[in-house]
């Protein structure tokens, strides 16, 4: 089977890539486009470290054939980061020590962004539910949950992210 051109919007920019059949979005992002903020913890949909946003919703890029994103909006952590400074979710993770080894952080932050976009005042249970697909093996979940709550407060206070 031949490779084909797939066009999609990556972090707000029109992007065209040659995609071999069955290549995952994770591989395209990391190996062809150099967007390595998207991680590769298990490559079988178990850890959430490869989470990206597809039209604003969190998806596992390790299970998603790249062909399926044609014509759609993909956001990686590189796209969330403003030119100067940090997105309020990133600031909250930094300020609340919600990063340890850093490997789950990109997925956690994007999952949080998607949660707060659809629910600006999540309960603690809703936060826990939202990040349940993102594994932190340093087990720093308390700090992460507190960071998500702080990000919700910050965003409500008018510091809107992009």
């Amino acid at each position: 089977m031949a490779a084909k051109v797939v066009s999609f919007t990556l972090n707000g920019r029109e992007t065209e890539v040659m995609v071999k059949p069955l290549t995952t979005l994770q591989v395209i992002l990391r190996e062809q486009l150099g967007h390595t903020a998207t991680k590769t913890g298990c490559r079988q949909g178990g850890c959430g470290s490869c989470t990206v946003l597809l039209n604003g919703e969190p998806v596992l890029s390790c299970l998603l054939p790249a062909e399926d994103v044609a014509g759609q909006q993909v956001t990686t952590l590189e796209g969330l980061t403003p030119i100067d400074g940090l997105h309020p979710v990133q600031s909250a993770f930094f300020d609340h020590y919600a990063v340890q080894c850093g490997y789950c952080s990109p997925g956690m932050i994007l999952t949080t962004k998607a949660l707060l976009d659809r629910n600006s005042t999540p309960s603690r249970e809703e936060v826990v539910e939202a990040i349940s697909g993102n594994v932190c093996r340093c087990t720093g979940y308390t700090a992460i949950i507190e960071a998500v709550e702080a990000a919700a407060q910050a965003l409500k206070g008018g510091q809107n992210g992009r």
Partner: protein
Amino acid sequence: MGANVLEKAAEKKYRVVGQSVPRRDGMGHVTGATKFVGDVHYPGMLHLKMVRSPVPHAKINSIDFSEAEKVPGFVRVLTHRDVPKNIYTILCLIGVGPDDEPVLAVDRVRYQGEPMAAILAETEEAAIEAVAKVKLDLEELPAVFDVEEALKPGAPIVADTGVNYFIYEGHHCRRVRYGDVEQGFAQADFIVEETYNTKPIEHAPTETTGCVAKPEADGRVTVHTNTQALYFSLDNTALILQVPFQKLHFVGGTVGGGFGGKVDVITEPITTLAAMKTGRPVKFIYSRAEEMQVSSPRSAWRLKYKDGVTKDGRIVARQITSYADAGAYNRHTPYAVTKHAANVAGPYTIPNVHIDAHCVFTNHTPGSAFRGFGVTMASFAIELQMDKIAATVGLDPWEIRFINAYRNGDVRPHRKVAEDVTFIETMQAAAKLAGHDLPEHLLAMNSWDRNGGQHG
């Protein structure tokens, strides 16, 4: 001296101690700019995948690579013949021996998943396909998976030394002898015996183990690795490859979760060798399945306690026989058992102690470091045993711990004098946090008062 010393220290304001300091690596982590080893890509980079043993114990008759070589993108294979010093043990750096583990298996495999040959290919997919096409002619051997079974006469022999235990200065175990346990048991009102077992635990770091080795124009090799022990890995790699240390440049410090699971120097020697043999950058990163199956887990342990206790709750003798399941090779377990022997009697002062701590070889995946290894499972057994003693004697479990707790100046079974001990203060603080009201006589105790020498 006493608890007030600690309170005074806590009142003092420091610039760093007691203050929150921003994480130096935090900015990279929240922006995704941090480069982990898997993020390192070079043009022309080859991918390495291992041919692994499908069985726990077998004689290797032959390995046939002819079909693997036909896979498009196949570059070459490495076997034990390519490795300059194939048999090694990582703790040779601190004098542990003999060397026991092959980088690549020679004529026998001793655990399921043991590396037998390395395949190099232009893409990861080609490497995986070529590995699948390697034909193994193996003659399966009886295997042993239980530490006590492994020490019985007639058990399948795992180690090349001819015995399934690590030899400590001529002895079959690490021994500690302090006082006279038989005399202690004779004085005791109760004998409390129990066996405790723990199982292997995998660290399962979110980032799997791996490295990228790149040959440089000046003849050196740069190795990007997520090892937890950078120079330890460099030194072992240089020894295995028989090259001067300065020929290797190790780059690391960014580890996506380790917890002890990334100190074993498993991927660096073969990947560096592959880069030297091909003149190309080489990447070798474990799949999640490899991480779960072949990266060293916390070892399984078995601990047998026999304690002599008086009616008033004083432990007067403690005899421990313990076994670490090292799996097929040394790795860090000989060291773990020594550390274990120094701690397995617990943070209690006992006048008569007898410890036989064994490092046993079986056909399990080799175990290794994991957060306090050797001591963590001892603490599990010790504290269950303390509760059992409390129930047997009919005393409160807190009381049993306070009256036997070691104090500053006490001599430990391995002859170290206890210093900077705050065990009693820690238990008092823990009780307070847990909302448990301790009786006055326990609150009055401290780690500096040895009851006029009556204690222990």
